[in-house]
């Protein structure tokens, strides 16, 4: 059987030094190479311009590829667009900062609006038959709020979610996340949370791929913007 393609997107500003990356890698390493093609995109290593919200001038200006991607050869958001579009499973990982996902995660979400918009405004379903999951790591609390925020966007973008679609862990009220490294890497109970999140998403994707031996193919045309789009504002 063809390998499942998993892409993980690490959105910690500390990149490969972060616990967020370490957990994502640890979870990916636990999945067999025979059945899975695995790729981790470290967002902090990419040059990513913030969304310029052309959408807010006119939703029809927001297209895929994004106008920034088209105009600026130095912008590397294409790595993330292409990673998602070729994946069967997308695992988005973020630290919790002040109760929210990282600023890098938010930047990426806003840039990914172009994929969501291709369906809801332009009626082209680019993201389909792809399973999503999240890995959320932080201190004190906030992971349920982050999971809700991420789920809100990524379901609209078109990902499909298995039951229990995220793994999360928050440490005690201690700002020094270096203290967590040993626990995260060696505490079997904590490790299992994240390995299970990746395995659950992969198993779900595999189940969708093979109902009764047939390929899964489901596209939902979004009605989210199923109202008259606003007329252009000549005063802008």
């Amino acid at each position, binding site marked *: 059987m063809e390998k499942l393609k998993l892409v993980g997107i690490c959105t910690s500003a500390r990149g490969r030094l972060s616990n967020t990356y370490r957990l994502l890698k640890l979870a990916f390493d636990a999945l067999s190479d025979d059945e899975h093609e695995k790729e981790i995109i470290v967002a902090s290593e990419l040059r990513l311009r913030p969304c310029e919200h*052309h959408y807010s001038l*006119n939703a*029809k*200006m927001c297209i895929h590829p994004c*106008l920034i991607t*088209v*105009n*600026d050869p130095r912008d590397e958001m294409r790595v993330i667009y292409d990673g998602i579009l070729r994946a069967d499973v997308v695992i988005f990982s973020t630290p919790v900062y002040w109760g929210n996902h990282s600023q890098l995660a938010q930047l990426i979400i806003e840039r990914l609006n172009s994929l969501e918009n291709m369906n809801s405004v332009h009626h082209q379903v680019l993201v389909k038959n792809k399973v999503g999951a999240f890995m959320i790591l932080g201190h004190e609390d906030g992971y349920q709020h982050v999971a809700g925020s991420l789920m809100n966007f990524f379901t609209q973008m078109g990902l499909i979610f298995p039951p229990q679609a995220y793994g999360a862990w928050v440490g005690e009220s201690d700002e020094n996340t270096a203290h967590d490294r040993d626990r995260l890497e060696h505490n079997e109970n904590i490790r299992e949370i994240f390995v299970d999140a990746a395995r659950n998403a992969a198993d779900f994707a595999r189940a969708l791929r093979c109902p009764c031996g047939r390929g899964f193919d489901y596209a939902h045309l979004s009605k989210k913007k199923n109202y008259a789009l606003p007329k*252009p*504002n000549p005063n802008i």
Partner: protein
Amino acid sequence: MKKPENVPANRDRCRCPVCPLFTGCNRDRSEKFFCGAGLSECDMDSSKMCICGTCPVFADYDLAGGYFCLHEIE
């Protein structure tokens, strides 16, 4: 996506001259209405905010995207 017709009725409604990308170079060359007339011959700064989507011609021709001074509608 249909290219707007390069006719006075469309050119007169064109908002390119009030676009942040529009420069003296465009004015000197009497360039505008890029979605219908074709690309600019000037250096256009794509880091500035394109306003194609605010133009009535954009709506009338059901255009998508923007920066038509840099990207021609085929």
